[in-house]
């Protein structure tokens, strides 16, 4: 048969998978429906973790927010909640993420710029002022200092008389992907994972509804990985945490139900949906077959989705609204449990109030106007989507073998294997844009020659907020019981040299109003700091 005329385009997914012009039952003839695809809420959970998905409950609309001081961010939280957001998500500034106080010389110019500045328990009390912590769930994007920020959150609840078993939420607490992609690491990998297993063990006993890690592919993808790499590296990290916790003596069914995931929703519509479906299936199979999990909850891959920041363009920024809409729809069609939609202005600055409202409204429109929530996994059974799902699973399995051959995740970090793989993909992507094999509207095609400067109003962070934060920190240091601070830090230092669970000691430190930087310094002293191999 003569092939019909086709344009000279390379029909491939963003990850480079060739796409055929048509898919038929022959493409999935090797699939056994009940074993490989199955029903939603049933093993291997390809079609979703719940039987009735969004008919039972919509996803949590959780907008990542934070800037300036705790007071400014608390106002933004209330604004978003008033506009119908259903969960909180805290963005911390870079000094907080890197374990430095606002008055540290290294923090100069960075306080409150990329998120909210948190130095002591006082900041956390202000941040969550008049927000019912027993009714709303909070996600906190914090990794290296996760134990400290989490302890502060618990201390706020304790002061308000809220029992810990009423608290729900997530700490990102995924340091492995820091070495791979986001690069806000502090301590060396093994010591970081030790603190993570301490948090896991502490939560089993004390904060049973808390998601102890949000195993993240988002940043791996943003650093330039393909969908396949995002899927494979993230799940490999997940398995590493599972093994670490089992090695620390924990029963897999005691902690696995509280592990959660965080994926990127990039631009390739069907590939992204297939990625979410493949992730669920691989996790369920591996947890059951390799790690011997028995509880149903241990097999469920629950995940948050954020639309892809790296696909947004500084040029014609309003177009970003459409990009985000499509990516959000992918998350919903992929069965996400919670969703953040980026604002159109994020290549220029942190989102303005107007931009963030449009982003939230995007989710509300998908939920209430499109009807996509009426039936579970509407794309299940699509010859194309099922083929892509199988393909992604196979490719991820090939990567797992490769990682194992390299000596496992820790070894791959040390010799820069992940970093090299990602940089290769990032450069290939950029080159395909520059060769115009990949069209980015407004950047390499449909450019507006009249467009000179930014056409939308962007959020400005008042530089005086840095001075205000430092002044407040000084005042707290003067007021607190410095003897108690010293003794709690000393106790943490001593216990860090043993194999004791460190969470209770961190709790004592934050309750004495020791600063985030002071606590992190104890660990820098005991555990040392990580230096990454310089490669490009």
């Amino acid at each position, binding site marked *: 048969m003569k092939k019909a005329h086709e344009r000279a385009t390379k029909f491939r997914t963003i990850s480079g998978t060739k796409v055929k012009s048509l898919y038929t039952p022959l493409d999935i003839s090797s699939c056994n429906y009940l074993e490989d695809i199955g029903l939603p809420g049933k093993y291997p959970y390809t079609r979703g973790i719940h039987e009735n998905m969004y008919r039972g409950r919509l996803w949590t609309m959780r907008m990542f927010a934070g800037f300036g001081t705790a007071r400014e961010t608390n106002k933004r939280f209330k604004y978003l909640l008033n506009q119908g957001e259903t969960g909180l998500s805290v963005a911390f500034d*870079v*000094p907080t*993420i*890197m374990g*430095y106080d606002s008055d540290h010389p*290294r*923090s*100069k*110019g*960075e306080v409150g*710029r*990329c998120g909210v500045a948190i130095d002591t328990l006082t900041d956390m009390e202000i941040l969550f002022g008049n927000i019912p912590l027993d009714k709303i769930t909070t996600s906190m994007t914090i990794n290296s200092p996760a134990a400290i920020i989490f302890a502060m959150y618990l201390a706020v609840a304790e002061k308000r008389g809220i029992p810990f078993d009423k608290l729900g939420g997530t700490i990102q607490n995924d340091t492995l992907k*820091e070495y791979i992609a*986001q*690069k*806000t690491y502090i301590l060396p990998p093994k010591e970081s994972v030790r603190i993570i297993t301490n948090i896991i063990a502490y939560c089993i006993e004390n904060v049973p509804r808390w998601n102890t890690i949000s195993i993240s592919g988002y940043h791996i993808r*943003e*650093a*330039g990985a393909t969908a396949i790499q995002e899927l494979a590296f993230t799940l490999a990290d997940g398995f590493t945490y599972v093994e670490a916790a089992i090695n620390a003596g924990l029963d897999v069914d005691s902690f696995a139900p509280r592990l959660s995931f965080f994926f990127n929703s990039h631009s390739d519509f069907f590939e992204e949906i297939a990625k979410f479906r493949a992730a669920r299936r691989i996790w369920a199979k591996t947890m059951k077959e390799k790690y011997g999990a028995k509880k149903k909850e241990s097999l469920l891959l629950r995940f948050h989705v954020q639309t892809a920041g*790296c696909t947004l*363009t*500084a*040029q014609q920024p309003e177009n970003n609204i459409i990009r985000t809409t499509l990516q959000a729809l992918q998350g919903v069609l992929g069965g996400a449990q919670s969703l953040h939609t980026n604002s159109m202005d994020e*290549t*220029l*600055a942190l989102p303005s109030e107007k931009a963030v409202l449009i982003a939230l409204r995007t989710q509300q429109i998908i939920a209430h106007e499109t009807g996509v929530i009426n039936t579970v996994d509407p794309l299940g059974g699509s010859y194309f989507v099922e083929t892509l799902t199988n393909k992604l699973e196979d490719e991820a399995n090939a990567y797992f073998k490769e990682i194992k051959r390299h000596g496992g995740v820790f070894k791959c970090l040390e010799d820069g294997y992940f970093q090299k793989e990602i*940089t290769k993909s*990032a*450069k290939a992507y*950029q*080159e395909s844009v*520059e060769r115009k094999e990949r069209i*980015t509207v407004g*950047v*390499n095609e449909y450019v507006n020659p009249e467009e000179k*400067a*930014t056409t939308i109003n*962007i959020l400005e*962070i008042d*530089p005086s907020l840095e001075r205000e934060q430092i002044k407040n920190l000084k005042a707290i240091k003067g007021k607190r019981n410095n003897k108690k601070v010293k003794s709690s830090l000393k106790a943490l230092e001593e216990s860090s040299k043993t194999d004791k669970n460190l969470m209770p000691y961190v709790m004592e430190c934050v309750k004495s109003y020791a600063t985030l930087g002071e606590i992190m310094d104890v660990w820098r002293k005991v555990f040392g700091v990580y*230096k*990454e191999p*310089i490669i*490009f």
Partner: protein
Amino acid sequence: MPKIKIKRKPKTKTKVRVLLAKAGLDGHDRGIKIVAKALSEAGINIIYTGLHQTPESVIERAIEENVDLIGFSILSGAHMAVFPRAVKLLKEKGARDIGVFGGGIIPDEDIKKLKKMGVKKLFGSGTPLEEIIEFVKNYKSS
């Protein structure tokens, strides 16, 4: 910082030498790594500092290595702290001949201010690699 005379490597006559740097706490290194790879494939001599440097350590390294240009990549909003500090340090150390350029998320208003302070060139997101390569290649002759 103690005043130590930094020993400079002799200037090479032909190749442009560039130090690419991440200063501050910002960990976003996708952009700088792509630029590093592209510039070095274009035959430009590239040194990359790695993450979490200070303006002081970058300037010291730049003088030691005797580069023609220093390129900072900043996506954390700290550009108004890092660039002016770098330009000032170069003046103080008598190394005005080393040019400073950069890229990242930098609002138009700030670009204007930074150029007035002596930053040679700032590239926003979406800049084609070719444009950066051209700028660096032509830098020495200008």
